[in-house]
Protein backbone atom coordinates (compact mmCIF):
# COMPACT_ATOMS: atom_id res chain seq x y z
CA UNK A 1 0.00 0.00 0.00
CA UNK A 2 2.75 2.40 0.92
CA UNK A 3 4.50 1.66 -2.35
CA UNK A 4 1.34 2.55 -4.27
CA UNK A 5 0.98 5.85 -2.45
CA UNK A 6 4.66 6.57 -3.00
CA UNK A 7 4.22 5.89 -6.70
CA UNK A 8 1.29 8.26 -7.01
CA UNK A 9 3.14 10.95 -5.10
CA UNK A 10 6.14 10.65 -7.37
CA UNK A 11 3.97 10.42 -10.45
CA UNK A 12 2.12 13.62 -9.59
CA UNK A 13 5.17 15.51 -8.37
CA UNK A 14 7.15 14.72 -11.48
CA UNK A 15 4.51 15.65 -14.03
CA UNK A 16 6.18 18.90 -15.09
CA UNK A 17 9.50 17.16 -15.82
CA UNK A 18 7.73 14.29 -17.53
CA UNK A 19 5.65 16.68 -19.60
CA UNK A 20 8.85 18.10 -21.03
CA UNK A 21 9.89 14.53 -21.91
CA UNK A 22 6.42 13.79 -23.25
CA UNK A 23 6.60 16.86 -25.48
CA UNK A 24 9.91 15.65 -26.92
CA UNK A 25 8.58 12.10 -27.36
CA UNK A 26 5.57 13.43 -29.26
CA UNK A 27 7.61 15.78 -31.41
CA UNK A 28 10.19 13.12 -32.13
CA UNK A 29 7.51 10.56 -33.00
CA UNK A 30 5.48 12.86 -35.22
CA UNK A 31 8.50 14.25 -37.06
CA UNK A 32 10.09 10.84 -37.57
CA UNK A 33 6.83 9.25 -38.68
CA UNK A 34 6.16 12.02 -41.20
CA UNK A 35 9.65 11.54 -42.63
CA UNK A 36 9.07 7.78 -42.55
CA UNK A 37 5.86 8.20 -44.55
CA UNK A 38 7.76 10.07 -47.26
CA UNK A 39 10.55 7.48 -47.24
CA UNK A 40 7.99 4.67 -47.22
CA UNK A 41 6.02 6.13 -50.12
CA UNK A 42 9.23 6.64 -52.08
CA UNK A 43 10.46 3.07 -51.63
CA UNK A 44 6.98 1.67 -52.24
CA UNK A 45 7.05 3.47 -55.61
CA UNK A 46 10.46 1.94 -56.35
CA UNK A 47 9.09 -1.49 -55.50
CA UNK A 48 6.22 -1.20 -57.95
CA UNK A 49 8.18 0.66 -60.62
CA UNK A 50 8.74 -2.48 -62.74
CA UNK A 51 12.32 -1.30 -63.11
CA UNK A 52 14.58 -4.07 -61.85
CA UNK A 53 17.38 -1.79 -60.66
CA UNK A 54 14.99 0.37 -58.64
CA UNK A 55 13.28 -2.66 -57.12
CA UNK A 56 16.71 -3.94 -56.07
CA UNK A 57 17.50 -0.66 -54.32
CA UNK A 58 14.25 -0.86 -52.37
CA UNK A 59 14.87 -4.53 -51.51
CA UNK A 60 18.33 -3.66 -50.27
CA UNK A 61 17.03 -0.90 -48.01
CA UNK A 62 14.31 -3.11 -46.55
CA UNK A 63 16.79 -5.94 -46.06
CA UNK A 64 19.19 -3.70 -44.14
CA UNK A 65 16.47 -2.34 -41.87
CA UNK A 66 15.00 -5.77 -41.19
CA UNK A 67 18.35 -7.40 -40.76
CA UNK A 68 19.85 -5.16 -38.10
CA UNK A 69 18.70 -4.18 -34.60
CA UNK A 70 17.05 -0.80 -34.33
CA UNK A 71 19.45 0.31 -31.61
CA UNK A 72 22.39 -0.41 -33.91
CA UNK A 73 20.74 1.58 -36.72
CA UNK A 74 20.16 4.46 -34.34
CA UNK A 75 23.77 4.54 -33.16
CA UNK A 76 25.23 4.27 -36.67
CA UNK A 77 22.94 6.89 -38.16
CA UNK A 78 23.05 9.22 -35.18
CA UNK A 79 26.83 9.33 -34.96
CA UNK A 80 27.17 9.22 -38.71
CA UNK A 81 24.82 12.14 -39.21
CA UNK A 82 26.09 14.31 -36.38
CA UNK A 83 29.70 13.70 -37.45
CA UNK A 84 29.21 14.61 -41.06
CA UNK A 85 26.47 17.23 -40.98
CA UNK A 86 25.75 20.22 -38.84
CA UNK A 87 22.56 18.73 -37.54
CA UNK A 88 20.89 18.86 -34.15
CA UNK A 89 20.66 15.77 -31.98
CA UNK A 90 16.90 15.91 -32.26
CA UNK A 91 16.92 15.83 -36.05
CA UNK A 92 19.56 13.12 -36.20
CA UNK A 93 17.46 10.97 -33.89
CA UNK A 94 14.32 11.70 -35.89
CA UNK A 95 16.00 10.72 -39.15
CA UNK A 96 17.42 7.54 -37.63
CA UNK A 97 13.98 6.49 -36.37
CA UNK A 98 12.41 7.41 -39.71
CA UNK A 99 14.98 5.34 -41.58
CA UNK A 100 13.77 2.36 -39.58
CA UNK A 101 9.99 2.88 -39.77
CA UNK A 102 10.25 3.84 -43.42
CA UNK A 103 11.05 0.28 -44.45
CA UNK A 104 7.98 -1.14 -42.72
CA UNK A 105 5.79 1.66 -44.05
CA UNK A 106 7.13 1.02 -47.56
CA UNK A 107 5.98 -2.57 -47.35
CA UNK A 108 2.58 -1.56 -45.95
CA UNK A 109 2.02 0.98 -48.72
CA UNK A 110 3.25 -1.35 -51.44
CA UNK A 111 0.90 -4.08 -50.25
CA UNK A 112 -2.01 -1.64 -50.12
CA UNK A 113 -1.31 -0.32 -53.62
CA UNK A 114 -1.13 -3.81 -55.03
CA UNK A 115 -4.38 -4.75 -53.32
CA UNK A 116 -6.23 -2.10 -55.36
CA UNK A 117 -7.92 -3.76 -58.32
CA UNK A 118 -6.07 -3.37 -61.64
CA UNK A 119 -9.40 -2.29 -63.13
CA UNK A 120 -9.10 0.99 -61.24
CA UNK A 121 -5.91 1.90 -63.05
CA UNK A 122 -7.38 0.80 -66.36
CA UNK A 123 -10.53 2.85 -65.87
CA UNK A 124 -8.42 5.88 -64.98
CA UNK A 125 -6.10 5.40 -67.94
CA UNK A 126 -9.04 4.86 -70.29
CA UNK A 127 -10.27 8.33 -69.30
CA UNK A 128 -6.99 9.84 -70.45
CA UNK A 129 -5.28 10.09 -67.08
CA UNK A 130 -1.51 9.74 -67.01
CA UNK A 131 0.07 7.01 -64.91
CA UNK A 132 1.04 9.49 -62.21
CA UNK A 133 -2.33 11.23 -62.14
CA UNK A 134 -4.08 7.85 -61.84
CA UNK A 135 -1.72 6.92 -59.01
CA UNK A 136 -2.27 10.18 -57.17
CA UNK A 137 -6.03 10.60 -57.63
CA UNK A 138 -7.32 7.04 -57.86
CA UNK A 139 -4.90 4.42 -56.52
CA UNK A 140 -3.17 6.09 -53.57
CA UNK A 141 -6.34 7.38 -51.90
CA UNK A 142 -7.77 3.86 -51.95
CA UNK A 143 -4.47 2.33 -50.88
CA UNK A 144 -4.16 4.73 -47.93
CA UNK A 145 -7.64 3.86 -46.75
CA UNK A 146 -6.74 0.21 -46.72
CA UNK A 147 -3.43 0.92 -45.06
CA UNK A 148 -4.86 2.93 -42.16
CA UNK A 149 -5.03 0.04 -39.66
CA UNK A 150 -1.51 -1.18 -40.50
CA UNK A 151 -0.12 2.35 -40.58
CA UNK A 152 -1.73 3.05 -37.21
CA UNK A 153 -0.09 -0.06 -35.86
CA UNK A 154 3.27 1.00 -37.27
CA UNK A 155 2.84 4.46 -35.76
CA UNK A 156 2.28 2.89 -32.35
CA UNK A 157 5.44 0.84 -32.77
CA UNK A 158 7.27 3.98 -33.88
CA UNK A 159 6.20 5.94 -30.82
CA UNK A 160 7.37 3.18 -28.50
CA UNK A 161 10.63 2.78 -30.43
CA UNK A 162 11.36 6.47 -30.00
CA UNK A 163 12.25 5.65 -26.37
CA UNK A 164 15.51 4.22 -27.72
CA UNK A 165 16.54 7.78 -28.54
CA UNK A 166 17.29 8.14 -24.82
CA UNK A 167 20.42 6.04 -25.44
CA UNK A 168 21.85 8.80 -27.59
CA UNK A 169 21.07 11.43 -25.02
CA UNK A 170 17.63 12.67 -26.06
CA UNK A 171 15.65 13.59 -22.96
CA UNK A 172 12.37 12.12 -24.09
CA UNK A 173 10.06 10.26 -21.69
CA UNK A 174 12.33 7.34 -20.98
CA UNK A 175 15.41 9.53 -20.84
CA UNK A 176 13.68 11.70 -18.25
CA UNK A 177 12.76 8.64 -16.18
CA UNK A 178 16.32 7.41 -16.29
CA UNK A 179 17.72 10.74 -15.11
CA UNK A 180 15.15 11.10 -12.34
CA UNK A 181 15.79 7.52 -11.25
CA UNK A 182 19.54 7.91 -11.12
CA UNK A 183 19.24 11.18 -9.20
CA UNK A 184 17.07 9.59 -6.54
CA UNK A 185 18.46 6.02 -6.61
CA UNK A 186 14.81 4.96 -6.86
CA UNK A 187 14.12 3.89 -10.42
CA UNK A 188 10.92 1.88 -10.20
CA UNK A 189 8.33 4.65 -9.71
CA UNK A 190 9.77 6.56 -12.65
CA UNK A 191 9.79 3.54 -14.95
CA UNK A 192 6.20 2.84 -13.96
CA UNK A 193 5.33 6.47 -14.70
CA UNK A 194 6.85 6.15 -18.16
CA UNK A 195 4.77 3.03 -18.77
CA UNK A 196 1.63 4.95 -17.81
CA UNK A 197 2.46 7.77 -20.22
CA UNK A 198 3.05 5.36 -23.08
CA UNK A 199 -0.17 3.50 -22.34
CA UNK A 200 -2.08 6.76 -22.46
CA UNK A 201 -0.47 7.84 -25.72
CA UNK A 202 -1.22 4.49 -27.33
CA UNK A 203 -4.77 4.54 -26.00
CA UNK A 204 -5.44 7.95 -27.53
CA UNK A 205 -3.77 7.05 -30.80
CA UNK A 206 -5.74 3.80 -31.08
CA UNK A 207 -8.93 5.76 -30.53
CA UNK A 208 -7.99 8.24 -33.24
CA UNK A 209 -7.11 5.52 -35.74
CA UNK A 210 -10.43 3.79 -35.10
CA UNK A 211 -12.27 7.05 -35.61
CA UNK A 212 -10.39 7.67 -38.85
CA UNK A 213 -11.19 4.15 -40.05
CA UNK A 214 -14.89 4.71 -39.40
CA UNK A 215 -14.81 8.06 -41.15
CA UNK A 216 -13.10 6.63 -44.20
CA UNK A 217 -15.56 3.76 -44.33
CA UNK A 218 -18.45 6.01 -45.44
CA UNK A 219 -17.89 5.02 -49.06
CA UNK A 220 -18.01 1.27 -48.37
Amino acid at each position, binding site marked *: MEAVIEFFEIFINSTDVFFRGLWITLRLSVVSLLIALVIGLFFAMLKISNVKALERIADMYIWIVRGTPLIVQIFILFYGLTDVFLISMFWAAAIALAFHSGAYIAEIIRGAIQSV*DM*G*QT*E*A*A*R*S*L*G*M*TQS*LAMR*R*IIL*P*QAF*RRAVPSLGNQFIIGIKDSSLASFIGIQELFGVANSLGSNSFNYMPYFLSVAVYYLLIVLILTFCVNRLEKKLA*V*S*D
Partner: protein
Amino acid sequence: MSEAKEMIRVEKLNKSFGDLHVLKDIDLKVNESDVVVLIGASGSGKSTLLRCLNFLEIKNSGNIIIEGEQIEKETHNLNKVRERVGMVFQHFNLFPHKTVLENVIEAPVQVKKMRQSEAEEIGKELLNKVGLGDKNNEYPSKLSGGQKQRVAIARALAMNPDVMLFDEPTSALDPELVGEVLATMKELGEEGMTMVVVTHEMGFAREVGDWVVYMHDGKIVETGKPSDIFDNPKEERTQAFLNSVLH
Protein backbone atom coordinates in the same frame (compact mmCIF):
# COMPACT_ATOMS: atom_id res chain seq x y z
CA MET B 1 -25.17 10.81 -100.15
CA SER B 2 -21.74 11.74 -98.88
CA GLU B 3 -19.25 9.08 -97.88
CA ALA B 4 -19.48 8.32 -94.15
CA LYS B 5 -16.51 9.52 -92.15
CA GLU B 6 -14.14 6.80 -91.09
CA MET B 7 -13.65 6.67 -87.35
CA ILE B 8 -11.42 3.66 -86.77
CA ARG B 9 -9.48 1.55 -89.20
CA VAL B 10 -7.48 -1.46 -88.12
CA GLU B 11 -5.05 -3.06 -90.56
CA LYS B 12 -3.27 -6.37 -90.10
CA LEU B 13 -3.30 -6.01 -86.33
CA ASN B 14 -1.35 -8.67 -84.44
CA LYS B 15 -1.05 -9.08 -80.72
CA SER B 16 0.65 -11.80 -78.71
CA PHE B 17 1.03 -12.45 -75.01
CA GLY B 18 4.34 -14.25 -74.87
CA ASP B 19 3.92 -17.28 -77.11
CA LEU B 20 0.17 -16.91 -77.25
CA HIS B 21 -0.85 -15.33 -80.55
CA VAL B 22 -4.17 -13.71 -79.61
CA LEU B 23 -4.97 -11.39 -82.52
CA LYS B 24 -4.09 -12.53 -86.02
CA ASP B 25 -4.09 -10.03 -88.90
CA ILE B 26 -7.23 -8.26 -87.79
CA ASP B 27 -8.77 -5.83 -90.30
CA LEU B 28 -11.66 -3.72 -89.16
CA LYS B 29 -13.37 -0.51 -90.20
CA VAL B 30 -15.74 1.53 -88.12
CA ASN B 31 -17.46 4.56 -89.60
CA GLU B 32 -18.80 7.50 -87.68
CA SER B 33 -22.12 6.69 -85.96
CA ASP B 34 -21.73 2.98 -86.59
CA VAL B 35 -22.58 0.53 -83.87
CA VAL B 36 -20.32 -2.47 -84.39
CA VAL B 37 -21.03 -5.53 -82.30
CA LEU B 38 -18.21 -8.01 -81.70
CA ILE B 39 -19.29 -11.55 -80.98
CA GLY B 40 -17.35 -14.75 -80.52
CA ALA B 41 -16.51 -17.50 -78.09
CA SER B 42 -14.62 -16.94 -74.87
CA GLY B 43 -10.92 -16.52 -75.52
CA SER B 44 -11.37 -15.53 -79.17
CA GLY B 45 -9.68 -12.17 -78.53
CA LYS B 46 -12.61 -9.74 -78.37
CA SER B 47 -11.44 -7.98 -75.22
CA THR B 48 -7.88 -7.84 -76.45
CA LEU B 49 -9.02 -6.18 -79.67
CA LEU B 50 -11.01 -3.56 -77.76
CA ARG B 51 -8.12 -2.96 -75.40
CA CYS B 52 -5.78 -2.46 -78.35
CA LEU B 53 -8.17 0.18 -79.73
CA ASN B 54 -7.83 2.02 -76.43
CA PHE B 55 -4.11 1.28 -76.16
CA LEU B 56 -4.53 -0.45 -72.82
CA GLU B 57 -2.72 -3.20 -74.72
CA ILE B 58 0.00 -2.31 -77.17
CA LYS B 59 -0.13 -4.13 -80.50
CA ASN B 60 2.84 -6.11 -81.81
CA SER B 61 2.29 -5.13 -85.43
CA GLY B 62 -0.23 -3.63 -87.81
CA ASN B 63 -1.88 -0.23 -87.93
CA ILE B 64 -4.52 1.41 -85.82
CA ILE B 65 -5.87 4.50 -87.50
CA ILE B 66 -8.19 6.71 -85.50
CA GLU B 67 -9.95 9.56 -87.28
CA GLY B 68 -7.44 9.35 -90.09
CA GLU B 69 -4.40 9.41 -87.85
CA GLN B 70 -2.17 6.39 -87.54
CA ILE B 71 -1.47 6.06 -83.84
CA GLU B 72 1.91 4.77 -82.67
CA LYS B 73 3.06 4.82 -79.10
CA GLU B 74 6.40 6.26 -80.23
CA THR B 75 4.88 9.27 -81.94
CA HIS B 76 1.64 9.88 -80.07
CA ASN B 77 0.69 10.77 -76.55
CA LEU B 78 -1.59 7.81 -75.89
CA ASN B 79 -3.22 9.64 -72.98
CA LYS B 80 -4.50 12.23 -75.44
CA VAL B 81 -5.78 9.51 -77.76
CA ARG B 82 -7.59 7.79 -74.90
CA GLU B 83 -9.44 11.02 -74.15
CA ARG B 84 -11.19 10.54 -77.49
CA VAL B 85 -11.91 6.84 -77.01
CA GLY B 86 -14.16 6.06 -74.05
CA MET B 87 -14.34 2.61 -72.52
CA VAL B 88 -16.91 0.79 -70.41
CA PHE B 89 -15.81 -2.34 -68.58
CA GLN B 90 -17.56 -5.53 -67.56
CA HIS B 91 -16.94 -4.85 -63.88
CA PHE B 92 -17.76 -1.11 -64.05
CA ASN B 93 -14.53 -0.08 -62.31
CA LEU B 94 -16.13 2.94 -60.69
CA PHE B 95 -13.89 4.79 -58.25
CA PRO B 96 -15.27 3.59 -54.90
CA HIS B 97 -13.86 6.48 -52.86
CA LYS B 98 -15.68 9.06 -54.94
CA THR B 99 -19.37 9.85 -55.18
CA VAL B 100 -21.27 9.24 -58.38
CA LEU B 101 -20.91 12.85 -59.51
CA GLU B 102 -17.24 12.94 -58.48
CA ASN B 103 -16.66 9.83 -60.58
CA VAL B 104 -18.14 11.57 -63.58
CA ILE B 105 -16.31 14.89 -63.23
CA GLU B 106 -12.92 13.47 -62.20
CA ALA B 107 -11.45 13.20 -65.69
CA PRO B 108 -12.94 16.40 -67.14
CA VAL B 109 -11.53 18.38 -64.21
CA GLN B 110 -8.21 16.61 -63.80
CA VAL B 111 -7.42 15.77 -67.40
CA LYS B 112 -9.22 18.41 -69.43
CA LYS B 113 -8.78 21.06 -66.72
CA MET B 114 -12.43 21.96 -67.00
CA ARG B 115 -13.80 24.32 -64.36
CA GLN B 116 -15.36 22.42 -61.46
CA SER B 117 -18.72 24.18 -61.84
CA GLU B 118 -18.88 23.56 -65.56
CA ALA B 119 -17.93 19.89 -65.12
CA GLU B 120 -20.60 19.48 -62.45
CA GLU B 121 -23.21 20.96 -64.73
CA ILE B 122 -22.27 18.58 -67.55
CA GLY B 123 -21.96 15.68 -65.11
CA LYS B 124 -25.43 16.23 -63.68
CA GLU B 125 -26.85 16.45 -67.18
CA LEU B 126 -25.23 13.16 -68.15
CA LEU B 127 -26.42 11.47 -64.98
CA ASN B 128 -29.92 12.68 -65.73
CA LYS B 129 -29.60 11.27 -69.20
CA VAL B 130 -28.72 7.81 -67.92
CA GLY B 131 -31.60 8.05 -65.45
CA LEU B 132 -29.58 8.62 -62.28
CA GLY B 133 -30.19 12.30 -61.64
CA ASP B 134 -31.13 11.53 -58.04
CA LYS B 135 -27.90 9.66 -57.23
CA ASN B 136 -25.31 12.41 -57.62
CA ASN B 137 -24.08 12.24 -54.05
CA GLU B 138 -24.30 8.51 -53.46
CA TYR B 139 -21.21 6.35 -53.28
CA PRO B 140 -21.01 3.56 -55.87
CA SER B 141 -21.32 0.91 -53.15
CA LYS B 142 -24.92 2.03 -52.64
CA LEU B 143 -25.91 1.37 -56.26
CA SER B 144 -27.18 -1.71 -58.05
CA GLY B 145 -25.03 -3.23 -60.78
CA GLY B 146 -27.18 -1.71 -63.50
CA GLN B 147 -26.92 1.72 -61.91
CA LYS B 148 -23.15 1.35 -61.54
CA GLN B 149 -22.80 0.54 -65.20
CA ARG B 150 -24.90 3.52 -66.20
CA VAL B 151 -22.66 5.74 -64.05
CA ALA B 152 -19.66 4.21 -65.81
CA ILE B 153 -21.24 5.11 -69.15
CA ALA B 154 -21.87 8.67 -67.98
CA ARG B 155 -18.29 8.88 -66.71
CA ALA B 156 -16.91 7.86 -70.09
CA LEU B 157 -19.28 10.24 -71.91
CA ALA B 158 -18.14 13.13 -69.71
CA MET B 159 -14.88 13.22 -71.67
CA ASN B 160 -16.95 13.80 -74.78
CA PRO B 161 -15.31 10.92 -76.66
CA ASP B 162 -15.66 10.33 -80.37
CA VAL B 163 -15.92 6.56 -79.94
CA MET B 164 -17.18 4.40 -77.10
CA LEU B 165 -15.92 0.87 -76.50
CA PHE B 166 -18.00 -1.53 -74.42
CA ASP B 167 -16.52 -4.79 -73.14
CA GLU B 168 -19.36 -7.08 -72.08
CA PRO B 169 -21.09 -4.27 -70.22
CA THR B 170 -23.95 -6.47 -69.04
CA SER B 171 -22.17 -9.76 -68.32
CA ALA B 172 -21.70 -9.04 -64.63
CA LEU B 173 -25.32 -8.00 -64.10
CA ASP B 174 -28.26 -9.84 -62.68
CA PRO B 175 -30.59 -10.68 -65.58
CA GLU B 176 -33.26 -8.23 -64.49
CA LEU B 177 -30.75 -5.35 -64.64
CA VAL B 178 -29.45 -6.04 -68.15
CA GLY B 179 -32.32 -4.24 -69.88
CA GLU B 180 -31.72 -0.82 -68.33
CA VAL B 181 -28.08 -0.79 -69.42
CA LEU B 182 -28.86 -1.99 -72.93
CA ALA B 183 -31.57 0.66 -73.20
CA THR B 184 -29.04 3.35 -72.28
CA MET B 185 -26.64 2.00 -74.90
CA LYS B 186 -29.34 1.82 -77.50
CA GLU B 187 -30.26 5.45 -76.89
CA LEU B 188 -26.62 6.40 -77.24
CA GLY B 189 -26.37 4.54 -80.54
CA GLU B 190 -29.49 6.23 -81.84
CA GLU B 191 -28.01 9.62 -80.99
CA GLY B 192 -25.19 8.82 -83.38
CA MET B 193 -22.41 7.78 -81.01
CA THR B 194 -19.84 5.56 -82.69
CA MET B 195 -19.71 2.37 -80.66
CA VAL B 196 -17.83 -0.91 -80.63
CA VAL B 197 -19.60 -3.36 -78.36
CA VAL B 198 -18.50 -6.79 -77.21
CA THR B 199 -21.57 -8.60 -75.96
CA HIS B 200 -23.32 -11.93 -75.70
CA GLU B 201 -26.71 -10.17 -75.97
CA MET B 202 -27.72 -11.27 -79.45
CA GLY B 203 -31.01 -9.39 -79.23
CA PHE B 204 -29.08 -6.17 -78.78
CA ALA B 205 -26.70 -7.06 -81.60
CA ARG B 206 -29.60 -7.62 -83.98
CA GLU B 207 -31.63 -4.62 -82.94
CA VAL B 208 -29.00 -1.94 -82.37
CA GLY B 209 -25.97 -3.14 -84.31
CA ASP B 210 -25.22 -1.71 -87.74
CA TRP B 211 -22.58 -4.34 -88.22
CA VAL B 212 -21.86 -7.62 -86.52
CA VAL B 213 -18.33 -9.00 -86.46
CA TYR B 214 -17.77 -12.62 -85.59
CA MET B 215 -14.37 -13.50 -84.16
CA HIS B 216 -12.92 -16.94 -83.76
CA ASP B 217 -9.48 -17.87 -82.51
CA GLY B 218 -8.01 -14.39 -82.95
CA LYS B 219 -9.35 -13.85 -86.45
CA ILE B 220 -12.34 -12.07 -87.87
CA VAL B 221 -14.31 -14.81 -89.58
CA GLU B 222 -17.29 -12.90 -90.85
CA THR B 223 -18.63 -9.34 -90.90
CA GLY B 224 -22.06 -8.32 -92.00
CA LYS B 225 -25.36 -6.63 -91.34
CA PRO B 226 -27.10 -8.20 -88.33
CA SER B 227 -29.83 -9.66 -90.50
CA ASP B 228 -27.26 -11.31 -92.77
CA ILE B 229 -25.18 -12.70 -89.94
CA PHE B 230 -28.09 -13.98 -87.90
CA ASP B 231 -30.32 -15.21 -90.72
CA ASN B 232 -27.82 -16.17 -93.42
CA PRO B 233 -24.39 -16.68 -91.97
CA LYS B 234 -21.99 -17.53 -94.77
CA GLU B 235 -19.34 -19.26 -92.72
CA GLU B 236 -19.87 -22.61 -91.11
CA ARG B 237 -18.08 -21.52 -87.93
CA THR B 238 -20.40 -18.54 -87.60
CA GLN B 239 -23.40 -20.86 -87.95
CA ALA B 240 -22.01 -23.22 -85.38
CA PHE B 241 -21.36 -20.38 -82.94
CA LEU B 242 -24.79 -18.86 -83.40
CA ASN B 243 -26.41 -22.25 -82.98
CA SER B 244 -24.58 -22.71 -79.72
CA VAL B 245 -25.61 -19.33 -78.30
CA LEU B 246 -29.10 -18.99 -79.74
CA HIS B 247 -30.40 -22.45 -78.98
